[in-house]
């Protein structure tokens, strides 16, 4: 009798995603939904995906979901959470969305200790609109709105969102993970599980930042994108748990 080495997760709808080759959105999608299935929560979950490449998530995640306007997902999730205090609620947001137009919403949701989880896809660029500079774009990185590379003088330094969120008491679990290697992906899945478990325990706001790729807008091949992430992003955006108070650890 043979054991399958791969099975589809019921957490994902059996369809092709329309993400670009080498994009890690698909991996993040799967980690989140597979974890919900493993926890027996997939039918109890409600997701929010705002504008950006993330907005299509409802076509792929087998979860009750709604779209949100650019940046507003944490406010939308706060509303959903008030109606369904016993469900698992999460937002799935990109960096253009969360770190730029949606800073007020994410900061206040974290400050209130909203009992939902935010999965933050950081690929240092605006994807859907065609590679413009994001608040997370690295110094020197070229984008369609920083064509000679981002400079500190013109745009300031990139925002380290996990570190920012971890200054807020309402955020009880903040971790940055990466999706470039199998080991990092396994660690990422653990972080997703941890976030959902803490949410389920009603302890507060949980936040996982995924360092992700965007080979199309970076202008590199998929394998090079993984390398670029490791060589450029991880040094500026160090991985690890940024905040998890003792009472939450226990």
């Amino acid at each position, binding site marked *: 009798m043979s054991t399958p080495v791969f099975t589809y997760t019921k957490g994902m709808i059996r369809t092709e995603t329309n993400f670009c080759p080498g994009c890690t959105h698909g991996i993040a999608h799967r980690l989140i939904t597979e974890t919900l299935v493993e926890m027996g929560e997939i039918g109890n979950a409600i997701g929010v995906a705002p504008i950006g490449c993330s907005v299509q998530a409802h076509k792929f995640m087998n979860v009750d979901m709604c*779209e949100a306007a650019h940046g507003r997902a944490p406010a939308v999730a*706060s509303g959903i959470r008030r*109606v369904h205090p016993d469900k698992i609620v999460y937002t799935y947001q990109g960096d253009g969305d969360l770190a730029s137009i949606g800073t*007020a*919403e994410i900061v206040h949701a974290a400050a209130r200790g909203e009992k939902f989880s935010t999965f933050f896809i950081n690929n240092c660029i605006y994807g859907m609109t065609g590679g413009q500079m994001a608040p997370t774009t690295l110094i020197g990185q070229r984008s369609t709105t920083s064509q000679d590379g981002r400079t500190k003088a013109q745009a300031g330094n990139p925002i380290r969102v996990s570190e920012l969120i971890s200054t807020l008491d309402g955020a009880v679990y903040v971790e940055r993970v990466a999706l470039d290697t199998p080991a990092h992906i396994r660690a990422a899945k653990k972080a997703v599980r941890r976030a959902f478990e803490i949410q389920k325990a009603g302890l507060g706001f949980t936040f996982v930042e995924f360092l992700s790729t965007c080979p199309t807008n970076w202008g590199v091949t998929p394998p090079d994108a993984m390398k670029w992430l490791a060589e450029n992003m991880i040094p500026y955006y160090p991985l690890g748990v940024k905040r998890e108070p003792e009472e939450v650890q226990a």
Partner: protein
Amino acid sequence: MANGNDKVLLKGNEAFAEAAIRGGLRFYFGYPITPQSEIPEFMSRELPKRGGVFLQAESELGAINMAYGAGAAGGAVFISSSSPGIALMQEGMSFLCSAEVPLVALNVSRGGPGIGGIQPGQADYFQVTRGGGNGDYKIPVFAPASIQEAIDLIYESAELAAYWRNPIMIFVDGIIGQMMEPVTLPEQRPFTETSKIRDAKPWAITGYGDDDTKKNVVKSLRMQPDDLERHVEYLFEKYRRAEKELCRVETQDIEDADIVLVAFGTVARIAREAIEILATRGIKAGLVRPISLWPFPYDVFDKIGSRTKAVISAELSMGQMIEDVRIGVGKRLPVRLINRTGGMIPTSLDLADSAEKIYKEVN
């Protein structure tokens, strides 16, 4: 003998909030802004006691999006703000209309443009009837002229919003928000229990449970033009039906008047007194009081008799409703404007004097 015991004396803003709660609107999201801050204050005090939920948002953008989330999740939601705050909410209003999420929204309006002032105004007429948000959509707007009428309309709108799956806007000026009048309150409609939401609103995102064929999506993005066109056509079928079913107007003596005044909200009440003053001067004036601003009661102007010399739109703006009055009147009669703006309000005497002057000009 009656002795006022069946009535309570309430300030407009508190009455609106009470009506929303009694209407079954269990969730409120708000942000302070004059002249409606009594509403979030009242809600923060009352809703939690009565099994509801109050949340102070970080901004009006936050508030409307919390309302969208709660509404998409099947909650019955009320929000309130005043003119500049309503302006910030327009992105959300457009979104809710497209995604067909119910909501009852209240605008206690003030003077503009910009920050403007905090005294009463009606210069949000375009904002609320034309939609400040992007795209093709409509929001039914009711403009009560008394606290009692506001209570009744908010109460009714709780059901209308759920039925039409669209926001319903209640548009009052700051006067109605700040004044007090004796009112009769309706019975408390029970709040929908969370466990019953999916049955009441099968489209809501609640988590589908064991059967993933019941997965729901609440959305507004449609990348394919033919798909978006179909969706907008579908919405407008609904709006055309609403135009017939939600149009409301009150008239007084318009079949046989020398002039006809058109006014809504507090201005309609001032106009009623002005009409009494005009009668003492031998001028018979009629009144059209639109209660729904969208749909606007265009057809009512056909009832104006042959004696009438002019139709006058009286407004607390530079003349916004007058554009709808012109559509309703057509080329049949001259349409003139009497207005104050910026928070200034004409007295009944001012209104009567201006109307008399217009009457003499056109007669």
